[in-house]
């Protein structure tokens, strides 16, 4: 990409932020109040609650200093973990106590007249102050709320979180581009790019600031690694190899031409081991660790053109581990236990999209 193009991206980005409500919010509102709200969201509320469990609106009002409490005091936020939340209003007081004010909460314009009010609905964060609404720009696609999503200090933990929150139901927008059909039966032709880009974006945004996450550009037989994660000014290099198993269609989308199963996963493990050895001879005194990530899109009994399947067949591989056998490439001290990232089919859609499947 030419630098002029990058310059224009930069200019457009700066204009977009300047024209957003963010400057007005930050300048007009007490920054300490905003930070108190965001700290509570990031370290307490969204630790206990997954934003995806909120189907309606969640409101959090920072009570003015000295305000009398109202509603019912929350003893333990963790009681909400795993619960489906439709609409809920909370009030946070100076002493750190939290009150459930659902039912007592007036119009957000009135509630925010003399206080900061945070609202979350439909994957959008808004902050109200003095009756004015400011939408927080959605810059981090790896979290439903810009204020959710903890920071990871270990790569393995981050990959496991990604598998559960982003890949299992293909909620990541980039990852959705890997599928051929809405029912998530067949992958598109050569789906490697969206798979690795999705994982890369998550790792880049969610690993702590001491990690640097880069896409490997030279992906071929001799350079199989997809993502490089460098920890702490390069004393540790983590090589992430991404492979997929399942069925994919041809470029025209008219037939299923590739069906990868366990052998494909085994081949990838051997490639990773070979590459780690090659890297070790090149980079010298740097600790190298291999991470092997396999996106698992296997379905039982797929036939291109068939529109209905027993649900049990579509989910047949959900709990079926890949059979690596006694593979030496995975028994090395410098290769982590592989990460199988299973991706669910979209059951309700399979039959209704008969033309595509």
């Amino acid at each position, binding site marked *: 990409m030419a630098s002029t193009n990058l310059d224009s*991206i930069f200019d457009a980005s700066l204009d977009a932020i300047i024209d957003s409500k963010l400057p007005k919010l*930050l300048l007009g509102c007490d920054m300490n109040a905003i930070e108190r709200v965001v700290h509570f969201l990031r370290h307490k509320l969204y630790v206990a609650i997954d934003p995806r469990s909120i189907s309606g609106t969640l409101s959090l009002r920072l009570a003015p200093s000295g305000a009398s409490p109202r509603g019912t005091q929350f003893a333990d936020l963790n009681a909400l973990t795993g619960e489906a939340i439709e609409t809920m209003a909370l009030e946070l007081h100076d002493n750190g106590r939290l009150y459930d004010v659902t039912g007592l909460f007036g119009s957000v314009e009135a509630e925010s007249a003399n206080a900061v009010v945070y609202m979350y609905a439909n994957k959008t964060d808004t902050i109200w102050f003095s009756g004015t609404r400011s939408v927080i720009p959605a*810059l981090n696609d790896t979290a439903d709320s810009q204020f959710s999503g903890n920071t990871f200090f270990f790569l393995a933990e981050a990959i496991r979180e990604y598998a559960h929150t982003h890949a299992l139901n293909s909620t990541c927008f980039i990852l959705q581009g890997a599928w051929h059909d809405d029912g998530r039966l067949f992958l598109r032709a050569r789906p490697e790019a969206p798979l690795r880009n999705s994982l890369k974006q998550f790792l880049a945004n969610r690993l702590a600031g*001491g990690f640097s996450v880069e896409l490997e550009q030279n992906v071929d037989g001799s350079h199989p690694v997809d993502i490089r994660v460098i920890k*702490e000014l390069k004393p540790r290099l983590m090589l992430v190899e991404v492979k997929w198993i399942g069925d994919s269609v041809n470029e025209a989308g008219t037939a299923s031409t590739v069906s990868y199963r366990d052998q494909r996963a085994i081949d990838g493990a051997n490639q990773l081991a070979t590459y780690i050895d090659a890297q070790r001879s090149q980079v010298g005194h740097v600790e190298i660790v291999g991470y092997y990530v396999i996106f698992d899109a296997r379905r039982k009994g797929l036939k291109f053109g068939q529109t209905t399947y027993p649900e049990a067949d579509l989910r047949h591989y959900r709990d079926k581990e890949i059979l690596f056998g006694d593979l030496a490439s995975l028994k090395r001290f410098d290769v982590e236990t592989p990460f199988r990232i299973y991706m669910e089919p979209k059951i309700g859609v399979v039959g209704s999209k008969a033309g595509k499947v």
Partner: protein
Amino acid sequence: MLEAKIDCILLSAALCKENEQFMLSELHLFAYLACLVGLFQGWSVSQWGYAFWGTEDGAPFSDALQQEFDVLVECGAVLVTESLYRCESEQIRIADQLAVMSSMADRSGLIDASLSGLRFYGSGFVRNAMNSDPVLSNVRKAHSGRNLMIEEGMALLHSHFEKLRRVVPPGSSPKVPSILWLATLGEVNKRKEVHGEH
């Protein structure tokens, strides 16, 4: 060096307060961001007191900061486990006292402003956003370590800051340009993804 020593004490305590522990590169990253906020506020490079280098992979690094940090680790004020650092409670108390000293107000304000981006968006997001920082981007493209403060990107940085100053009046909290700058870099990253640029 006094400035580096002060920043080390303030930043290590502040990072611990945010996430209980921190990584060494985060210390350098947020010190660099504090320096940028200082430049936005009209500080000169010499006022900041110490220089930053860009490593080959585009991360900011300061020798002076590292030397002072090593002292904190050697004397046991900062403890390390598997390359994750955390401060002793006494060290956090010292940092709190230092931060409220009137002679430190401007400097501790800039350090605090650099952390406001972490509080708002999280540490990983900040690191990822800073990949699009014009100065650090130039270093990464060159694949060689460079002094960040004399980089050609610095001129570009100042022109962007000039634009940002139009909406951030003088006397505003330094947290405002800190968050707006990171939001801009995050927006750049998002648009680069759309254009297929990584």
